[in-house]
Structure formats: C-alpha cells, structure tokens
C-alpha cells in the first residue's frame, strides 16, 4: 500500500538528534494535514525519530522498510 505524501526529507547518514531537529523544522514549515515522508537510517534514527515526532504532537501514519533504511510518514498537526 503506497502512501500519498506532499514533501520528502532524506536523512540518510544524519545522526540523532540532528535528524529529529531537521524533521521538526521541516514540519513547522508545512501546512496542517500535509504528509511528510522522511527517510531514516536503521538503528538509533528509526528508534528515536518517530516517537519524538509523535511527542511533538504530529501523527505517525506509517513506517515502511526501504532497503536497509526506513520511510516514515508523518501528518502535520
């Protein structure tokens, strides 16, 4: 199942917590209800960023494997 998204952010190779900060800033610049796709590395990034984004009040729609990385879909709230 593919997910429609409005913007994308490739955070391959970006370490915690910079990846979260970049995601946060990107979401701040987006209108409500738009969906952001974020590409995250395995390990710490995929373990930390989704929860942090959620704690910031946004809605995590899905997390999909993407090769050895992951795609995170977040709806701006």
């Amino acid at each position, binding site marked *: 199942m593919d997910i429609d998204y409005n913007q994308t952010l490739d955070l391959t190779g970006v370490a915690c917590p910079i990846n979260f900060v970049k995601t946060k800033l990107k979401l701040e610049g987006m209108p409500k209800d738009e969906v952001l796709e974020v590409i995250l590395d395995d390990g710490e990034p*995929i*373990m930390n960023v*989704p*929860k942090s*984004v*959620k704690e910031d009040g946004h809605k*995590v*729609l*899905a*997390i999909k494997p993407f090769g050895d990385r992951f795609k995170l879909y977040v709806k701006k709230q």
Partner: protein
Amino acid sequence: MADESIKEFEKLGQQFKDEEKILKVDFDKLKAGGFIKQRQKDLFTVRLKVPGGRLPIKKLRKIIEVASKYSGSDYVHVSFRQSIEISHVHIRDFDNLVKELKEADQEVASCGARVRVPTACSGCEYNPRGISDTQKFAQEVDKRYFGKPQHHKFKISFSGCPIDCARTRGMDLGFQGEVEPKWEEPSCIGCRLCAKVCPTTAIIADKDTGKPHYYPDRCIYCGQCIKVCPSDSWCVNRTGNCVRIGGKHGYIPREANTVAHLIPDERVFDVIDKTLEWYGNNGQKRERIGNTIDRMGISKYLEFMGDILKWT
C-alpha cells in the same frame, strides 16, 4: 573497617592523646568507619557519604576546600560505589576535617559490617530510560538504614531500568525498576518497531499485519516497546521493582538471586526490613547474605519473606 584496625587505630589515637594532649577524636564515631588505613604511617583515606552518587554542589565546594587543606595529595579518588575519598589525611586532622565537612552537612561514610551507603543510577527524574525513582529510594535508604550493624557488609543499590547500571546483581540487596507493558490494538499502525526494539523476542511482529504478538514469559519489563511506539499502542500497565538478593563481588563473587518482579514502590522498605530481619536471625558473623542463602537454601529465605515478594 576491620575490628583489628580499629583497635590499632585506637591505640594510635591514645598515643597521640598521651603524647600531644591535643587530639580530640571521637572514636565512637570513627568506629562507624569511613577512615581507612593507608600504607603510609599515620595516614588515612577518608570516605565520604554520597548516597546514590548525588552530590549537591554546596557539599562539593566544601569537600574541595577541606581536601585542599587536609589531604597530603593533590587529588580526590572517586570510588566504585559513588563516594569521594580524600586520601593522605593525617590522624591528628580527623577531628577538624569532620567538623569542617559538617558545616556543609557532608558526612563521612561507613566501612565494616554495616549497611553501607546505597548506590543508584540517576533514575527517572531526567534519564529517558528511567522507570523507577532510584534517587528517592537511595536518599530514604540512607536515612533509614545507613550504618546499621550486620553480620558483614550489606550493600543496597537501585537501578532505574533493566539495563541495570547500578549492578543490582552484585549487591546484597538490589532493586531495579520495571514496567509491564500492555498493547491496545485500535491505535496500532503495524510499524513493527516494537518487535525490532525488544531485546528478548517477547514481541514478534505479525508477518502480514505487522502488529505485535506478545509473549510475557520472555518479557524483562524494560519498556522499550512503550518508548519506541509512535502511536501509543504500547502503554504502561503497571510499574514496579525487580528484587535481587545475595549478590556480591570480592574474591569469590556471587550473582544475586532474582526473587521477585514488579514489586510496588510502597513495598520496597518492607522487603528491606524483612530481609535484614532474616539475615539478622540466620546469618553468621562475617558471612554475607548470599552465603547465608547458599548455606540454608533460597527457599528458607523465600518462605520467611512470604507474601511480600509475591506478585501476580
């Protein structure tokens, strides 16, 4: 401090008293320990009490002041059990050193066959992984039990989560924070992160839906599933403490017996009281509680503890 060295110490003090008539050392207080004889003649290491490793800056300032004044070295030593030790202190300076430390409410720790200063991790106040309030426990244990005579040394420690930084497996009595998770289906997005993060395969993601299958038998109550879950499907069912008894380091180390899980916070002091009571009644002189357990059998201890260690 061993009895022999206390005697030696008293003799030494008496000598000073007789010869110099200036030494005013309270030997009763010193017997509670904290003064450790060094290789060097008349020099001692003074072990300071830092329960849970939490040292208010006000006290730290005073320690720096006092150490600069009375230590024959240019450093302090940070011990393995979170205390600060001032080395190379001359016996004639004990009295002043203790008095001056007291100005900042800094006390000297204990050695010997007593309940020692409790150790702890930083706990749940600001550590994201922390489950239990280890610092609150450590301060309270220090207040209630510090220095109480036992058959042998008695070390208590508190870890905030199953990573167990405070090494509860190597303590006479250890408590470690635990959280039992529960899963609520409606909000689950099937992202599989919980299964990925679980260190013990207590959570397996469904092949098709990605939703978790939970196997409580394998759960170590670390709460990583709750922490990672981006949709709050995993949440806290209850928190409590794992209880470990009879661990020690030393020449012949012994790993503690894990005797309970998810014991509520309000029962922690009942566990300590009753454990010390059992040890008092059943232990022998110079025997650690782990050895008492080996000699008598863990079932004797569990029988005595009864419902206090029961959890469901």
